């Protein structure tokens, strides 16, 4: 029998403390999409270095004298997220290869929409300079205007379009 999830308020209090510790120790917030960007930049740089250096997007992160894009704070943090999530799944007995989806959705459809959703997050997080964790949550903690705007835009749009996506979840 799988263990129940922690009381969300309590879990969130701990999440807030992790974020506070991050700000207190390192002076910056948590994030996630930045690591995905580093993976993309490193891959493009590995496959087509001249293309990467001449690009106005990748060029900011690669080139002579710059560290490997994978040697970034967020990449290490996200490796930690994988480890931490795995440990939590292990202690709460939730480790299982499974696809989770709404009741009326087939596995392949779920995979397709998960990938599309991920792609949209990948694009949106570039414009907003961060995702739910890096821009919204961490931004709100330091009272950045951008953090609140991004949060409102994410959840406001989510509610606005939820009706059209209802078959995926209900």
């Amino acid at each position, binding site marked *: 029998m799988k263990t129940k*999830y922690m009381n*969300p*308020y309590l879990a*969130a209090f701990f*999440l*807030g403390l*992790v974020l506070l510790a991050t700000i*207190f*120790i*390192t*002076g*910056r*917030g948590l*994030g*996630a*999409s930045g690591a*995905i*960007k580093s993976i*993309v930049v490193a891959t493009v740089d590995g496959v087509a270095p001249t293309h990467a250096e001449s690009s106005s*997007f990748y060029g900011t992160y690669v080139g002579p004298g710059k560290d490997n894009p994978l040697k970034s704070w*967020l990449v*290490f*943090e996200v*490796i*930690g*997220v*994988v*480890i*931490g*999530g*795995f*440990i939590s799944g292990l202690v709460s007995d*939730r480790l299982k290869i*499974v696809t*989770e989806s709404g009741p009326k959705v087939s596995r392949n459809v779920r995979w397709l*929409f*998960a*990938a599309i*959703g*991920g*792609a949209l*997050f*990948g694009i*949106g997080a570039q*414009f907003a*300079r961060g995702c739910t964790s890096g*821009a919204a949550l*961490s931004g*709100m*903690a330091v*009272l*950045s*205007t*951008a953090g609140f*705007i991004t949060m409102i*835009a*994410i*959840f406001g749009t*989510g509610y606005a379009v939820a009706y059209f996506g209802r078959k995926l*979840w209900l």
Partner: protein
Amino acid sequence: MGPFVPDLISDQLNLVVALLLGIGFGFVLEQAGFSSSRRLAGVFYGYDFTVLRVFFTAAVTAMSGVLLLGYFGLLDTEAIYVNPTWLVPAIVGGAIMGVGFILGGYCPGTSVCAAAIGKVDGMFFVGGGILGVFAFGEFYPLYHNFYESTSLGPIKVFDSLGISQGLFAFLLIAIAVGAFAVTSMIEKRVDKTSAPALAFKSYKHITAGSLVLALGILFIFLPDRKTHLIDKVSNANYVATHSTKGMEIDELAFRIVDAEPNIRIIDIRTPEAFAKLALPGSVNIQLRDFFSKDWIIPFSQRHVKKVIVGDSESQERIAYLLLQELGYENLAILQGGFDGFNKSILDGSAFVPTGSRWDGDVKQFREQARTDILKKIEANKNKGIKVLKVEKKIQGGC
């Protein structure tokens, strides 16, 4: 005093710290149930408001911590990274992510967490994310201008709204507590038998909500530490009851001519006035910057006398008392202020013979000091004005 990067923790060690904090982040995300896309999507359909609870509680916790640590002087809130605002791109990016949330059921952090415990949909989401960033990068020139548009810098939300930091913190807490109450009711209505909110005992949550609201009310009345201390030392009563030590103009001139190392001249005039004419070796600092941890080491050297130079003695006295309040010792104000020094030494116009037999010596000393100090000022100008403060930018963001 935090943050510890980059002074106490090197960039290399910071990566280890990132790994450890990431483990904590991933662990609590999973424990909160954020590795489940159905649970995450529930916030948009009314059957599960876990996301809202976790998101707001975490944001309020971290924000309260930052405010309290800042108030007690444990965290240099000027040094921490504040996500800069690009207004329209933030709205558009957020909207794109909102659609992604409905279709994908995750956000990047939670998808990584889900993938870590074996959720295949989480892995597809991460893969999609990689493709999304790649697509963005490849077509970047098309929207480069838009991406950089409406840049407003690292602005704070309470300034944008035109209210105080404390009032905003209270409002955020009040909205969060109100949202928790309302969404619990919605949840119970949508699903009468197994709504997550049924697991909460009301009295416990009313107690918790009240305590958090009380904290919010406290924030309204908690000024930020800088304003509080500056107000305190500027108070006429405080100034009248606290004495300050002074340094005479001639003594300072002598020490400058002598190039005495155990003296640090702190110029509190405006940067414009400082740029026009300043004493050799002096640093220009505004009152609010005294709090920066950059000054802890240079100001803490007890054998070094800190001489405060300002437009007037009363202005100097406030700076003196503020430094004293911050725990620094061996301070002095320049008697007569910068103007007095200027008149007595630099242009010599203020020399009034007192009729004493030392008049000649004083006059001769001042003339000697004038040429010497002017020479030093000139030499400093050629070197450019030295700014002691090192710009240390903490990198952040995604």
